[in-house]
């Protein structure tokens, strides 16, 4: 490996890693503020306003408060696992971001940076499913190691919920793989250029049907995967105190909290890449195409995040048995039928 080769490969990926990581963490901090503001508006309030102009310094104040809190480990807790659990949650949430293509190829100072993506691996989508399936452990072990029955029930509920909905999550995306024929995230993104009618959600090839169904199945199971309302049973403060993170305080609590928001951004980014045309502009002519791809990507991600918050403010929580029935008896069969539909559509269109 020559020096210049090393330079051309190592420097761009390190730079991309640093930039994406820091922007992500900054966005997560402000996402909490955005959510509180929006929830306030949905409920005819104004949300946080006191710290800084329009409450803009609120995330910093929150972070400082969490840092300075006492870090308690209950005597009945299993120390090793109690400390490991929030780390697992955080690490798996961050790892999934590695294969998401935020923008098209670009050059800087004459160096080819490739896609705005940390690792362009050829099994990107499988990698994402592998990593997100690890997220269960953080919550499960947190629930178990706390030595508290509310936490344990929260942890068990949540893992059952997550493995149930992971099935639908995976099956809803298979439709894209069948049409696109690649697991490489950048290639899936590239296949949706030239106007919104080529995005997989609207793909005319299928007369709209499987793409739309797949998108909504994905979105619903993504709510369950990230433990957000209306599927936030693991936390369900009215019955479980606050579920798996009852015993956590200080930075360990902050890690769970941040992992939740990183996960929201991750699932929204995946949805954007797979269904909403990634960084491509909705209309393939001048005023739209001159906007950089990253902006389009972020705009789409944040519209989805807005939907997440909107739904949180609107819907009540499911009951546990309703949740399981819905996942296994409605969503899963729908996802399977959707795959059949897509296959039929592809054969009819003659692209096999």
């Amino acid at each position, binding site marked *: *490996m020559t020096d210049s080769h090393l330079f051309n490969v190592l420097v761009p990926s390190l730079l991309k890693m640093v930039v994406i990581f820091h922007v992500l963490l900054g966005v997560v901090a402000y996402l909490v503020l955005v959510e509180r503001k929006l929830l306030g508006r949905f409920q005819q309030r104004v949300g946080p306003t006191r710290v800084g102009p329009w409450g803009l310094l609120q995330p910093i104040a929150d972070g400082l408060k969490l840092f300075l809190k006492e870090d308690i480990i209950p005597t009945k807790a*299993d120390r*090793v*696992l109690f400390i*490991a659990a929030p780390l697992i949650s955080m690490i798996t949430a961050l790892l999934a971001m590695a294969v998401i293509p935020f923008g098209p190829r670009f050059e800087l100072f004459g160096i080819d940076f490739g896609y705005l993506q940390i690792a362009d691996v*050829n*099994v990107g989508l*499988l*990698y994402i*499913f*592998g*990593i997100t*399936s*690890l997220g*269960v*452990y953080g919550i*499960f*072990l947190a629930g*178990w190691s706390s030595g508290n029955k509310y936490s*344990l029930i929260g942890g*068990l509920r949540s*893992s*059952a919920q997550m*493995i149930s909905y*992971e099935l639908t999550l995976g099956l809803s995306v298979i439709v894209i793989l069948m049409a696109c024929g690649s*697991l490489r995230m950048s290639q899936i993104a590239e296949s949706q250029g030239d106007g919104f009618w080529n995005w997989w959600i609207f793909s005319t090839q299928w007369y709209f049907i499987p793409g739309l169904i797949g998108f909504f199945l994905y979105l619903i199971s993504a709510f369950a995967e990230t433990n957000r309302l209306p599927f936030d049973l693991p936390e369900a403060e009215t019955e479980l105190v606050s579920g798996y993170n009852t015993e956590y305080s200080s930075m360990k609590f902050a890690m769970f909290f941040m992992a939740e928001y990183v996960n929201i951004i991750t699932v929204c980014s995946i949805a954007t890449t797979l269904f909403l045309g990634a960084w491509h502009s909705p209309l393939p002519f001048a005023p739209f195409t001159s906007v950089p791809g990253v902006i389009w990507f972020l705009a789409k991600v944040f519209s989805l995040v807005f939907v997440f918050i909107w739904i949180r403010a609107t819907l009540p929580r499911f009951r546990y*048995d309703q949740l*399981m029935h819905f996942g296994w008896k409605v969503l899963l069969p729908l996802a399977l039928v959707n795959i059949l539909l897509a296959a039929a559509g592809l054969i009819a269109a003659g692209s096999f």
Partner: protein
Amino acid sequence: MDALLPSLLFYAFAGVILGSAAFTAFARDIVHAAFSLLFTFFGLACLYLYLGADFVGLSQVVIYVGGILVLLLFGVMFTGHQTQETEKRTVNFYWGLALIALLGAGMVPALLKAPWAVKSAAELPEAKSTISSIATLLMTDYLLPFEIASLLLLMALIGAVVIARGETKTDEGESPETSA
């Protein structure tokens, strides 16, 4: 230099796999044992990737780590956390040690000496993505095993629900702990 880094990687993976597997074998607490199995499976997945088997490696993560191990943990939770009671009564501890020592002592020299009909590491072709070739193989040469495997999975699914329901008439297949 070029060959050193990959071999160091191999030793790192092998160390993680064997260390965590040994922990699973000797740990008192069954939840710790299951948790350590996470590292074993994950290390094996890394080793598969290292061997150029990308699809097998990621299936390992999705199925073993994301599925089977979670099921095992569920099993631990539902059958009561009775470590103190049962784990003291490991039977045949020294006999077991003797057995694996004997087997190891017999098999390691044998497999080091055996004339394996393989190529040496230097003359191996570059590893390339296996996904599309595996897909083709599954739909052509291995179509019958593939279909039988799907049938088997269906049978396992139905069988598991029927067995786990038992006599308790709960409306969920997965909540048999209510009768315990």
